[in-house]
C-alpha cells in the first residue's frame, strides 16, 4: 500500500497541471465563443488551419 504515498500526491500534481492548462486556455480566450466552432467543424476542409490562423485575443 506504500505505493499510494507516491501515487496520490502524483495524481494531485497531474490534476494541478490540467488546471494550469485550463487556466491558460481560458486566458487565451479559447472558451469565449462556444457556438462558432460547432459550425466550423462542419466544413470538409482542405486547408483550414493554414488559411485561418487563430487570431489572438486583445491584450
Amino acid at each position, binding site marked *: *500500500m*506504500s505505493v*499510494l*504515498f507516491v501515487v*496520490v*500526491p502524483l*495524481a*494531485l500534481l497531474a*490534476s*494541478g497541471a*490540467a*488546471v494550469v492548462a*485550463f*487556466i491558460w486556455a*481560458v*486566458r487565451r*480566450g479559447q*472558451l*469565449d*465563443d*462556444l*457556438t*462558432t466552432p460547432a*459550425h*466550423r467543424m*462542419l*466544413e470538409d476542409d482542405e486547408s483550414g488551419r493554414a*488559411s*485561418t*490562423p*487563430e*487570431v*489572438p485575443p*486583445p*491584450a
Partner: protein
Amino acid sequence: MNTRLVTDGAHVAEPSAVVCAHCGQPGPAEGEALPWFCCAGCRAVHAVLAGAGLGEYYAFRDRLGARGSRGREPAESEFSEVDAPAFQRLYCDSVGEHTDRAELELGGLTCAACVWLVERLPRLEPAVVGARVDLGRGRVAIEFVARGPDRVPLSRIFELLSRLGYSPRPARGLAADRQRKLELRRLLLRIGVAAASAGNVMLIAWALYGGADQTPSGADAEVEATLRLFHVATWLASLPALWAAGLFFRGALSSLRTRAPHMDLPIALGITTAFVWGTVSLWRGGQGLYFDTITTLIFLLLIGRYLDVRQRARASQAAELLNAVLPGQAKRLSSLDGTQLESVAIERIVAGDLVLVKSGETVPVDGVVEAGVSTLDLSLMSGESKPVSVGPEEPVLAGALNLGSDLRIRVNQAGAETRVAKLLDAVERAALERAPLLGWANRLAGRFTWVVLGCALAVFLLWAPGSLELGLSHALSVLIVACPCALGMATPLALSAATTQAAKSGILVFGAASLERLALPSRIVLDKTGTLTAGHLEVARRVGPEDLDGLLLSLEGGTHHPVGRAMAGYLAALGTQADATYFDAREVLGAGLRAETTAGPVLVGSPGFVLGAAQPTPEVREALSKAAATESVVLAARAGVASAAFFLTDSVRPDAAASLRRLAELGHELCILSGDRAESVEHVAATLAREAGIRFAEVLAEVSPEQKLARVKDWASTRSSVVMVGDGVNDAGALAAAHVGVAVGGAAEAARLSADVYLGRSGVSELTRLMAGARRTLRTIQRGVGFSLGYNAIGIGLAAAGLLSPLVAAILMPVSSLTVVTHAFRSRSFRSALSSEARS
C-alpha cells in the same frame, strides 16, 4: 411530399424556375442562360468566389439549406472613413510588426457557410492574415497587414465584405464588451478549478465511502497511515474550491450588510461550517470530513451562476447597437451648384448643410427637399406600408429609404437631434426603466433561506445541550441537505435548456427571464405591417387583356420601386415572356413609367398619371369604381387606351388566422397597434377576426412611434404581462417598454435589438410556438422547484430528528441536484412545440 420551394414566406417559386446563382432570388422567366444572376452585385460575387477557387461555398451552403444574401457593389469611397487615423486609433489594435487587428460587426452572418466563407478572406485578399468569426455575436476579428509595402487599407476589406453580401460596421461598445468577456472568463476559471477540485476529492472520497473509513482504529499502523493520507489529500484538494467559492462569501457578506436574504448566505454558512468542522475532525484524526460535499456543492452552484451571467450578458448588448440604423456618414455638397461633393462623418453635419441622398441610400438627416423628386420608403419609421412621394419643399426624416432618384436635402436636424435618434433614445430609457424581473422561484429561495437558517439553529440548540458534537453534526446535516442549490438551479437550468432548444428551432430568447413572463396570460400587442401581413405589396388581382404584359415586365423589371417590383414579380410568376421592343423609356417619379413603341406610347403607373393621357376601357372603369380603399391600383395603357388594371394589396399572412385563434385559446388577449392608415388596419383586423373567430381587445391605427411607446407603457403599468410584437424602428420603443418585446423575422435592426425575443421566421405561427413553449418551460420550472422543495422538506425533517448523518445528506444533495438538472435538460419545451406543429 411538398415539392414547392418556399423561400421567405412570400415568394413561392417552382423549383424549375430560374433562380439567381448567388442569392437564390427567383428569376423572371424560363430559358435564361445559366448561371443567371438577379443583379450585377451577385454576378460580381460569384465571379470573385469562382476566381479564388471558393466555388464550393455554394455546394456547402445548399447542403445546409441556407440562402445567400444579395451581393452588392459598394459605392465609391463608401467606407473611406475607416482609413482615417482617428478611426484606426479607436478600433484597431496593433498585434505585430506590420499587422493590425480590427473587430467588426458583420450583418448577414447566418450559418456555417458564412463562417466558412468569411474565414477564407485571406484567399480573396492576401493582405488579410486571418479572420475569425463569432457567429453568436455576429462579429468577425480580422488581422491584416496595415504597415509596410504589402499594406492594405481597411476600407478595402470593408468593400470586399460588402461585395460578398455582408454589411460590415466597426464594432461599437468594445470596452463594455471586453468587460463582460472578462467577467465570464473569471467565472469559467472558477468553474474549472472547482471541477478539478471536486473531481479529485470525490475520487479519493469514494475509497472512503467504500469502507476505508470503517476500518477499526488501531488495527494496523499502515492502514492507519494510508487513511490519514487520504484524509489529508481530500483536504488539500478541496482548498482550490474554496478560492472558487469566493464570490459566494462576498455575496453573503453584502447580504448581511443590506439585510436582504440571499441564497449566498446559507451557502457561505454551510461551506464555512463544513470546512471548519471538517478541518477540526481531520486534526483530531476523526470522521465526518465534508470536503466532498463542499467541493461538489461549489462546482454545481458555479455552473448555475455561469449560465445566469451569460444570458444576462446577451440581453444587455442590445442598447449599444441601436446606432446602427443610420448611415455613419453623409454626402455633403459644399457649393450650391453641387459640383463639390465630399463624404463627411454624420457628426460633422450641421443644420443648413446640403446633403445628397442617392437612390437606394438611407436618408441620414431630418430636413427639407431642396431639389429632386423621389419616393421614400418610410416603413422603418412610421410603419406605413405604401411608399410616399416627396418633392421640393417637402420634409423628410432620417431613416427613410430613398427608392427613386437622387435627392438634395437641406439639413434641419442631424445626429442626436433627428426624430429617429430621439426615438432610439426613448428605447434605451424604456429598457432601463423596466423593473428587473425577479422570478417567483428566486423570491421563494430568498424566503427559504431564512427557514433553513432558522431550522439549523433550532436543531443545534435542541441537540447541543446533550452533546455539542452531535448538535453541530445535525445542524450541519440540515444546512447541507437543505442547501437550496437544487432550488436555485431549477430556474436558470430550465430556462437555459429551453432557450437553447428554442434557438435551435429558430427562436432567439435574449433575456431568459422573459420566458417566465410569456407563460402568463398576456395582452399581446401586434403591429400590422410585417407581423400580420407580408409587409410588402403583392398583386391581388387584375382585369383586362394580357397583350401588354411582356412590355410591362420588361419596363418594371428595371425599377427599385416596390410597386414595380411587385408587378415584375407577379408577371414573371405568370410565365410572361419579356418584350423589350420599346425605346425612350422614362420614369416619371412618383407616378409611373412611360415608353415609346411603334404602336404608340405605353404608360404604366398610378391612375392619376395614366388617365391623364389615356381613356379607360369600360371594364377598367368599372373595376376602378369598385376598388377598395386599401388597394393600390396600377393602370397600363397603350396608344391612349388604358386596357389593363392591377390591384395591389399588402396581403394577410396565410398562417395568421389559425395562429391567432390558437393564441386566444391559450388565454391571451389580442390588440393591434399600427402606424398604418386606419382603413387598411381595420380591413386587416376585420378579416382576421372573421377568419379566426376571435375578437381583438383593441385596434388602434395611425399611431405614431411615440404614441405606441406611451400606450404600451400605460398597459404595462396596469397589467402583469404585456407582450409587444413588431418589426419596425417605429416599434422599437414599444418593444422595450413592454414586459416582453418580440421582434419577428426580417425586423429592422433597432427593433431586433430592443426586443427580448427574436423570431427567426416571420409570421404569427412562430409567436404561437413561442407562447406554447414558454408555458411548457414554466411547468418544467415548477416541477423542478416542487421536487427540490419536497426533497428539502423531507430531508430537513429527517436531519432535525437526527436520522440523517451528514455523509448521507452529502450524498443525497448532489443526487437531488442531478435530478433537477436531468429534468431540466430532458424536458422538450420547444422541440415538442415544433413536432406538435408538424403533426397538426
